[in-house]
């Protein structure tokens, strides 16, 4: 069985549904506390779920990024194991420098949303599409449009390195972008003002992914905002976002 560690930092609040998503695609997930004494070598992959770890003190993700456990996760990532950060987990990966991970430093920020209509924390359903080549998390995606919710106050990928985004595009590190219902990537489809509509970025190797939308909340058809459920079995069929976890499973040898 492929074993996944879902990390609970103080303040994380999506660990249960994230574990459920991992288990539902045939992996076996354990929820590990930040102060766990377990050996991470036991695990084949890692997920940093959403929440408000360490109360978002200073800035979302900063304190967790400095947590001793993150050093260990970095080492595991270096071994090529998949690491998925969702929402607050995404912010942690960016603050830890694992994303974009080109230099050993914090190279980007996930800044407060800019949205002309809703200020501050914003929970809504959006559409994203895969724009990257194959990595640990998008092996199943072609041009699919994925229905998925966001729920954050700080989800805007930014950097002061003007060359960076171009470099990321070149390296195929930009994995998901916000799009409209036709798959067009435009400003109207961008819920938080993220640079180039970026919703998810991987490291260069493709085994670490930081994404703001929540695939574990768009996992079954019953979750989706727009849906027709023929029966309960149909309601429990996997939705598009579940492929992120399936891809992770396939990536683990």
């Amino acid at each position: 069985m492929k074993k996944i560690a879902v990390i609970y930092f103080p303040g994380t609040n999506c660990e249960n549904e994230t574990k459920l998503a991992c288990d539902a695609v045939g992996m076996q997930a354990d929820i590990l506390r930040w102060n766990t004494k377990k050996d991470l070598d036991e695990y084949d992959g890692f997920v940093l779920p959403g929440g408000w770890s360490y109360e978002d003190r200073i800035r979302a993700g900063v304190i967790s990024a400095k947590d001793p456990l993150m050093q260990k996760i970095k080492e595991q990532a270096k071994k090529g194991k998949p690491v998925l950060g969702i929402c607050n987990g995404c912010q942690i990966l960016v603050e830890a420098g694992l994303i974009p991970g080109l230099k050993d430093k914090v190279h980007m920020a996930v800044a407060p949303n800019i949205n002309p209509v809703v200020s501050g924390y914003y929970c809504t359903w959006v559409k994203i599409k895969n724009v990257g080549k194959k990595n640990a998390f998008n092996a199943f995606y072609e041009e699919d449009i994925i229905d998925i919710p966001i729920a954050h106050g700080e989800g805007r990928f930014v950097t002061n390195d003007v060359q960076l985004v171009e470099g990321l595009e070149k390296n195929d590190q930009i994995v998901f972008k916000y799009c409209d219902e036709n798959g067009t990537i435009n400003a109207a489809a961008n819920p938080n003002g993220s640079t180039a509509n970026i919703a998810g970025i991987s490291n260069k190797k493709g085994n670490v992914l930081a994404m703001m939308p929540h695939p574990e909340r768009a996992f079954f058809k019953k979750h989706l905002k727009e849906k027709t459920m023929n029966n309960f079995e149909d309601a429990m069929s996997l939705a598009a976002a579940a492929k992120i976890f399936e891809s992770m499973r396939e990536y683990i040898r």
Partner: protein
Amino acid sequence: MGDIDINTINLDLSDKELSALIKENGLGFSIEEIKKLPKILGRDPTITELHIFNTQWSEHSSYKSSKDILKQLPTEGPTVILGPKEDAGIALFTEWQGDKYGIAMSHESHNHPSQVIPFEGAATGIGGNVRDVLCMGARVIACGDPLRFGNPFGKNKNRTKYIASQVIEGIAGYGNPLGVPVICGDVYFNESFDDNCLVNVITLGLIKEKEIIHSHAPKDAEGFDIIIVGKATDNSGFGGTTFASVILDEDDRESNRGAVQVPDPFLKNVLFRATEAVFKIVREKNIPVGFKDMGAGGIMCATTELTSSACFGADIDIDKIHVSMHNLPPYMITCSETQERFTWICPKDFTPTILKIYNEDFDLPSVSEGAKASVVGTVTKENNYVLRHKGKIICNADVNQITQGIKYKRESRQKKYTGKEPSIAEPDYKDMCLKVLSHPTVASKLACYKHYDTEVQGLAVIRAGEADAGVQAPIDGCPAGLALSADANPRYALIDPKQAAINAVAESMRNVAAVGAVPIAMTDCLNFGNPEKPEQFAEFTEAVKGLAEATSRLHLKGTQGPVPFIGGNVSFYNESAAGKSVAPSPVVACLGKLEDVSKAITMKIKKENSTLFLVGERKDELGGSVYYELHDHLGKNVPEIDYEKEKKMIHSIIDAIEKKLILSCHDISDGGLLTTVAEMMLGGEADGKIGASINLDFSSLPLSKILFSESSGFVFEVDNGHIPKIKKMFPDAMILGETGGSDLRFTAKDKQFRLSIEEMKKAWTSGFTEALQ
């Protein structure tokens, strides 16, 4: 009574001196009440005892005015696992893989604090309510928030807008980090709430019947440890219960701030997980325990209730309680309402396990300064409540005397409502439709819900605003779904509190039925004025009569019995210093159950060329309606519920949805028929694209009354192939029109009116936002 080691306070004083003593100590006693103390204790009280009885005898803790009246409410039935006895009631939900599952449900108010410090007040409202549900052993899965604010365009508009925005932020600021989704709620604006907003909270939790944890000491608990876990005790919220039972004077706003607790959702998040870890071991090893949240009355209330309910006493050393402030007087430590705390009672040999889970595994002391689990005392065989401080006994009273509280028979005198039906000239219909849609009560609350995390925990199937009730699938892999709605129209209550209560019950049931769920349990939060004033107390008694009557007559589906109340709360003294009471507000919440959550439907029109049915006769019942409000009238004719018809209609809707004969459904309420159809076109996100044409020539009423009467009913969309079946199930229903096109067309008396989706959307999505700006 027991011996004590410190000086007592002489109460053998004149009324004037007693009154001065009450004021000086910030107590809420009446003169008559404080005079009872020496009789009960057999001596004068210590300062700590004085505060203990003061807290327990407050209206908030003792229900002294309401207890007898509330007995009318039905609380039993086949869907009740636990009635309104402990911190939360529990309704039987479903059986799944050999286990019986219940839904724990609690419903409370946090009105006074929210008026004084709205962000913190609303946040701690959520915080306290979720603790009630957790402490039953349940996993907290959902919240609902019925809110009432003042007139956003009236003389207090700035304060009202501030309070409304801050309350919404406070709910988001607590619920989001904690990770509890908001699944329903409503917002009304009315000037009667100018000086007293109402912030009600409903919390749901999932629990297996065999895993319920009780808030009383177990059998044979003598010698068990009493453990306090969570935030270090400080002076915050001291006097909170007394404060909840006083009339707010705007001039005292600053001095009242100290009575509001300080919320910490971050610590609560960790506490919840640590507590769940304790639950797990308690269940695995079958350890006898008692567990209770610390809310009103703090440590004193939790420890006395845990022990007295099982016929024990307690011996507590105040010096062992972890505190974050030096030199707090002991009565403050025992009665303050510091947030994020719980009490455990457990066998001594289990104590190290509890301490390890909180203090080491979840490392509370590192997570939040001063937070931890501490053993503070033991359960005693004698019924005395003993508190020790610096080696001296400072309280030694009969624990049953403390928890028993007091009771009043309040005088009740109904005020005669003298309002009349207005005569209003027929309006410009199109213009009036848009005005109704943009009225803040009717307008979309999307701007509010977008600040709430509706998705966390991954249980959502239908979100707040998408339908008349929120729907969740709470058990992984199990088809059973739950639905939740909360209702109470304040303007109906200004005319007739009893009818308002009946309407609240009926509407909450209609809302739950509109998604396809069977109403299985109710809770109530009764927000009223001053019970010492006979006219205001009569509003309360009338409303309770209405609740009892409506739930008894609108039977639990499949039975001849009532839909039971499994929990509730009373909030009195929602009265301004000028003597103005809030509109009587018997807010009810209705919990519904779907056997198969995949059959749940929203209100949004699903396709073109289907048929729209109307069930529920349009009547000249616009008293309290939005239409009258737009003309500055209250009117007189509040909608009346015909119980037999209503019951049949609600149950037929549920059956038709279960048989998959209905594509979308919406109940008729605020704004009337026109609003119902418009909202079905727009859908929860106001992104609907399918229009409708309807014919309104079915009634002899003036067109304005057909469009805007809020008489009970439903509009629902049916595939043309199912029309014969629907006609059979609803002999009284009529075809209202059909779906299609991209606008709303209505025909009446040879006239045609047309509203484009765009103009309706603009009106409907702007009204609420503008009210808050």
